[in-house]
């Protein structure tokens, strides 16, 4: 099989751009067109990060307070001292450990399978010619328009009939209808995957699986990482269907959250928020790990035209 050289498109550029009226710092390193961010960029991004993180920060604040402290104005902005107590209460009220394990299983399975199916299907829609392609693609997009709140009823009927109620399968399988994923991978691959690569491989006698493994997957890697992250989070945060299909005996974290905070005719917001915090932290870990896969600024597997 021929070696498809992994080259990047761009050539090393001048160290400083002397041309043009606008004097912008421009540096290209060997790998590509990495420009440095200017001060304006830093300010904007920092502000966006602040706005994005503030509610999360406040979740930590609220989780370390009591319910009275949260609901009584003025709203507390600094952490309190009740975090450990609240965590104890959370584990008293629901089986959070089991919930975390279940959610990890569910979200991982959904993410892995979805990414795999979506990449295969996305590749087929993007680059392969076959009869009915456009019609089937329209069907894929159409499936995204089904509102989930209503489809739970026939779905529950199906799940009951196959005796999956209360089991994790009930939550994993229906989530695999990954129209978004297919659409997303198709979009990405149609831009990022030049047809020449595939044709070159075919000429060399590679069959489809080989092409997938050696050509498609490497190029699709950033998108697969992104899709994996998004799908993982979606499966993790799904609260509507799991609440119907599972119970507190075998919960995911969102189901467990629904059972938290039962006070005497009132909801203990501090406990609910603490649970929400526990539910959110694993996601941030996943981000940190998968985020490295989104390689910055380098196109892999390109072909010099």
């Amino acid at each position, binding site marked *: 099989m021929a070696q498809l050289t992994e080259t990047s498109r761009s050539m090393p550029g001048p160290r400083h751009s002397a041309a043009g009226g606008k004097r912008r710092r421009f540096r290209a390193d060997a790998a590509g067109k990495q420009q440095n961010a200017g001060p304006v960029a830093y300010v904007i991004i920092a502000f966006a990060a602040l706005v994005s993180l503030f509610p999360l920060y406040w979740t930590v604040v609220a989780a370390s307070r009591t319910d009275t402290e949260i*609901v009584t104005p003025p709203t507390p902005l600094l952490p309190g001292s009740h975090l450990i107590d609240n965590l104890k209460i959370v584990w008293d009220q629901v089986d959070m450990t089991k919930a975390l394990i279940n959610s990890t299983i569910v979200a991982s399975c959904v993410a892995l399978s979805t990414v795999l199916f979506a990449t295969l299907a996305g590749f087929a829609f993007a680059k392969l010619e076959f009869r009915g392609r456009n019609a089937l693609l329209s069907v894929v997009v159409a499936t995204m328009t089904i509102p989930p709140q209503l489809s739970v009823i026939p779905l529950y009927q199906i799940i009951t009939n196959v005796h999956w109620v*209360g089991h994790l399968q009930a939550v994993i399988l229906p989530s695999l209808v990954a129209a978004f994923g297919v659409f997303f991978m198709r979009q990405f691959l149609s831009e990022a995957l030049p047809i020449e690569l595939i044709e070159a491989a075919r000429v060399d006698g590679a069959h489809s699986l080989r092409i997938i493994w050696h050509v498609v997957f*490497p190029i699709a890697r950033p998108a697969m990482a992104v899709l994996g992250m998004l799908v993982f989070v979606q499966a993790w945060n799904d609260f509507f269907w799991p609440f119907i299909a599972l119970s507190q005996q*075998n919960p995911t974290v969102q189901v467990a959250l629904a059972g938290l905070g039962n006070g005497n005719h009132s909801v203990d917001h501090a406990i609910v928020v603490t649970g929400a915090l526990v539910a959110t932290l694993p996601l941030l870990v996943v981000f940190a790990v998968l985020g490295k896969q989104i390689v910055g600024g380098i196109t892999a597997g390109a072909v010099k035209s």
Partner: protein
Amino acid sequence: MRTSGRTRTAAVIAVAGLATCATLITGCSDSKDKSDKGSNSSSGSSDQITLRIGDFGSFGYDDKTGAALFAEYHKLHPNITVKEDATSDGQRYWDTLKLHLSQNSGLDDIQAIEVGYIAEADQPNLAGKFEDLGKVANVDDWVSYKEKQATTPDGKVIGLGTDIAPTAICYRKDLFQQAGLPTDRDAVGRLWAGDWQKFVDAGKTFKKKAPSGVAFIDSGSGLFNAVLASQPSQYSDASGKLIYDTSPGVKTAWDLATEAVQEGLTAKLKQFNTDNSWNAAFKTSKFATIACPSWMIGQVRDNSGPALKGKWDIASPPQAGNWGGSFLAVPSSGKHIKEAEDLAKFLTSAASQVKVFQKFGNLPSTKAGLNDPAVQSATNPYFPGTPVGKIFAGTAAQIQPAPIGKYDGQVKTFITDNGILDMEQHGTSKEKAWGNVQALVKDKISE
């Protein structure tokens, strides 16, 4: 192109992960089956059985925060373990329960039903899915109006009563004094005894000399609910048909509540609003009275804070009504019907109800429970000197049963949230507000 070592590792992990998922998907996780409606054997009471009870909010049964009834039951029946499946949102609990009932799956051995939904559960569609508990328990043990609520038109009793919530009036002694009204609870009770109109009139008197910024009552909706609860004719007639627009009870409550709104007697609050404005208003003394079902005592105490301790008192209402309460029902599709029924009887027995009352304040619904000295003599440190138990138990004894229907809850929401609250928040006229209610009923409820 070279497959790097890193890619290969990723590949191995991915394949292993998918294999694990496939195993799970094909249902090899049979270890979960044990939690599916009790354990394997259904015969012989000497086998280990796990009973599951599904409920919402605060029933006060559990071992950690409640009256530890589950542990007690386990001592009495060592082969039975009880597990609770609690949800904090009562509406979500009910919606999900309905879906589960429609497929007879995902149900617990005992399912709690709130009084707001019991009429729906009495309908043949749902009632057929529950056991007739009238056959295993003595209905007369409970106050008469309670079990009537859980009785279907053909006499089947689908739920055993847990608690009730007779409604009194909580008032601020200090604010009443500033406005020149009596402060002793008997005198206050006499101010408006027998007639809710007198209550509204007392409000007008209060307003004349009230400290500035203090309304008489927290919300028009609270007043509406309290008045309606005491009427013999409410949203539906005896056959379950919706008669809200002709019902004299609804008219009385609507007229009085809107009068209070138009006279500026309410603090225009939405009870239990998620933005906590209602909770905050206790502390800042935005209102002097609030309709107090027995469970509201805890809210009054927690929201007002220690600074106002001793300033609140409880007086008898003009007319007695009930606002709240629940039932325990046993789905017929369960695997341990007899054991579930026994547990339900235990949890709703007078002794258990008294224990829950002492821990959580939920008022018993059994006659024996209400007459128990522990209840009769109950007090609350936040209301020093007030015979809390006596007032509520006494009010309970005066409640007249009224027919309920399955649309009651919805109509109640329309009237309180879209009618009265709309008048308070947007200044809508009384006629237009009622028009809104009618339009909503026409759109949402098909007869």
